[in-house]
């Protein structure tokens, strides 16, 4: 509502010049956090469009649901644990406990790497099935979407690596450090959420997305 007030002002009317001097920020958050939020919006649009493309493709001929590697359930659990680790680090950073931050980051990083390894294992499993064919849309979508999600995770790991290096050098939790850990945790939770939506709708059988399409009147 504050933004709404800001864009309904009448700047041509006489104003108390001094009173207005403190309005330099539109949103009360650090620039990096706003930047990350906008980036997450961009990534949301990307994955939303992929889901729409998948659903649209399902309506066409020759659609066969892809095989569902059971491994994905385990991978999902690993990513959840990764997110838990980052949340641990975030809470510890807020309490200024450097040891807790270190442990949280380590746990988060470990399980995230394990998730990536699990995804690669799932790729290999899938490529080994009889009648594997890249022209099969469900298989192609699986590789494309998991690869894009994985690339975003790898990008997150770069930021995580920088934050971890800083934590190791630091003796106490300073404000910029707390900011980096906070951003890492936000990014991890977001990518977990994206994965849960992708897994729930597309890669754990197509029942859910079928239901969603039926509710929207497309089926």
């Amino acid at each position, binding site marked *: 509502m504050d933004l709404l007030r800001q864009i309904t002002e009448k700047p041509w009317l006489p104003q108390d010049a001094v009173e207005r001097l403190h*309005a*330099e920020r539109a949103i009360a958050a650090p620039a990096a956090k706003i930047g990350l939020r906008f980036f997450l919006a961009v990534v949301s649009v990307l994955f939303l469009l992929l889901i729409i493309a998948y659903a*649209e493709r399902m309506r066409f001929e020759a659609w066969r649901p892809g095989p569902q590697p059971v491994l994905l359930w385990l991978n999902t659990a690993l990513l959840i644990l990764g997110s838990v680790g980052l949340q641990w680090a975030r809470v510890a950073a807020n309490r200024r406990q450097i040891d807790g931050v270190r442990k949280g980051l380590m746990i988060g990083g470990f399980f995230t790497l394990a998730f990536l390894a699990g995804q690669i294992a799932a790729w290999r499993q899938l490529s080994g099935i009889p009648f594997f064919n890249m022209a099969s849309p469900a298989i192609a979508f699986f590789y494309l979407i998991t690869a894009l999600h994985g690339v975003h995770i790898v990008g997150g790991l770069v930021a995580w690596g920088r934050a971890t290096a800083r934590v190791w050098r630091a003796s106490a939790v300073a404000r910029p450090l707390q900011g980096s850990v906070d951003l890492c945790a936000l990014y991890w939770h977001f990518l977990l959420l994206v994965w849960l939506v992708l897994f729930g709708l597309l890669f754990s059988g197509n029942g859910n997305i079928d239901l969603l399409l039926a509710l929207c009147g497309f089926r």
Partner: protein
Amino acid sequence: MAYAEPAVVDHAPPAEVPEVELYHAKTWLTKYVFSQDAKVIAIQYSLTAIAIGLVALVLSWLMRLQLGFPATFSFIEPADYYQYVTMHGMIMVIYLLTALFLGGFGNYLIPLMVGARDMVFPYVNMLSYWIYLLAVLVLAASFFTPGGPSGAGWTLYPPQSILSGTPGQEWGIILMLVSLMLFIIGFTMGGLNYVVTVLQARARGMTLMRLPLTVWGIFVATILALLAFPALFVAVVMSLLDRTVGTSFFMPHIVEMGEQLPYGGGSPILFQHLFWFFGHPEVYIVALPAFGIVSDLISTHARRNIFGYRMMVWAIIAIGGLSFVVWAHHMYVSGMNPYFGFFFATSTLVIAIPTAIKLYNWVLTLWRGNIHFTVPMLFCIAFIVTFLNGGITGLFLGNVSVDVPLSDTMFVVAHFHMVMGVAPIFVIFAAIYHWYPLISGRMFNQALGLFHFWVTFIGAYLIFLPLHYLGFVGVPRRYFEIGETGFVPESAATLNEFITVVALIVGFAQVVFMANLAWSVFRGRVAGRNPWRAVTLEWQTAEVPPGHGNWGPTLPVVYRWAYAYSVPGVEDDFVPQNLPPSQVKAADPSARAAE
């Protein structure tokens, strides 16, 4: 209610937020090449965009030579012609217009106009440029690959774009798709900077509604681009996989040269939806910064505050929002449910409302203004007229029943060149002439500027008005050669010759423009501070051109909006945004009485 300065003491309380540490380059290389200064990045963006834009300009001459004088130039084969069309369109829309408005003007003007020292993430900003340059180089490299660049048309519709009958099917299309991916990644880095800088790095006193409309235009256009480019990204990645690893996202069962291809079941229409979900907002990604710049320029050169500032801001936001729900009007002939056609026709026509508000407000700003017919002002007026022309033909084409017969004719070519080719280019010229004294510290040559304006303005109309007519008589677009038909009169060929000659003349005028800029950098009259007597912050810097960090030791404090021109009761006809109220000189009442 008349504008008046409030009678307050202008003491500025201490800043609540400490200044951010600025990156200071130490070597020549980090100062001018791998620079993190938004002004240097802006110039790098602009020069790269103009350089690749010149390639597209030359391609348009080659196309015109073929259309005007078919069967004359033996070096232009049908395949070449399609490559010219494709590369001309893609370069102009993405690599020139988008990059120049957002990467060029956005980088230069946002920090200066909002009163910041630089962008909020300077390192990411630098990366943005280098990735953009890489994208341009990858695209340009396709000219030198076996088979040449893609000839799929700038929309790159599958299945045709990746089948062997299309020129550039071997490497051209792959490089084009990779280049687009790079462009989008680079743009996203820059775009995050522009948005966050506008939101979080404004000088004290610079409320959102005191921002110049240029910043509003670039800000909203950037948000559009951030949300629309992912659609192109998805389309491009999927197309690339179809071409390289044999997936069938967009490829249906298809027989090529009597042979059944391994593809099957893909949906070409899905590509069109994704492409145009990006493609239509793209029109406004280019138009909104142009709208903003024109608003500021006509206000400055007519010495009058912009009419209806709030409406202008809201119209920019409304146009931005609406631009996401009109995309399928590019696909009427692809076939769709009639209810969809009705919806998209309606939403398309609704956009005319906020756009018309802006047009009326520009005209009302000029009304009884103290208009100075400077070169930037002439280009702005040319923009208003041209945008109106192109916009009105857009209303024709927005209707399904009118669009279907006119689709794929020269009428469409004329329409989109008027509305998103010529009109924004006029604004780019206006903006370059307007800010040239700030960027270079010198004035351009006025006579050459006027020559450039008149030849370009009249020439553009001589080129594109007849194209509407050619479209009406049924001359199709994308044809290498029309040959003899029962419906195209012979006079169309004469008209085509005429258009080609004019296009070459207009092209020559651009050489004069660039020579003027290059010559004036060294020999132009020293501009001094604020030669246009403008109120916005970028003209109020301590040095001209502005130095590293923009503002010297202290950041500016803003006391009023960006349109304090001809304020009643004030001596000067402009009051800079950062001039404290106590220093505003009141007009001498005796002088007024003598008048």
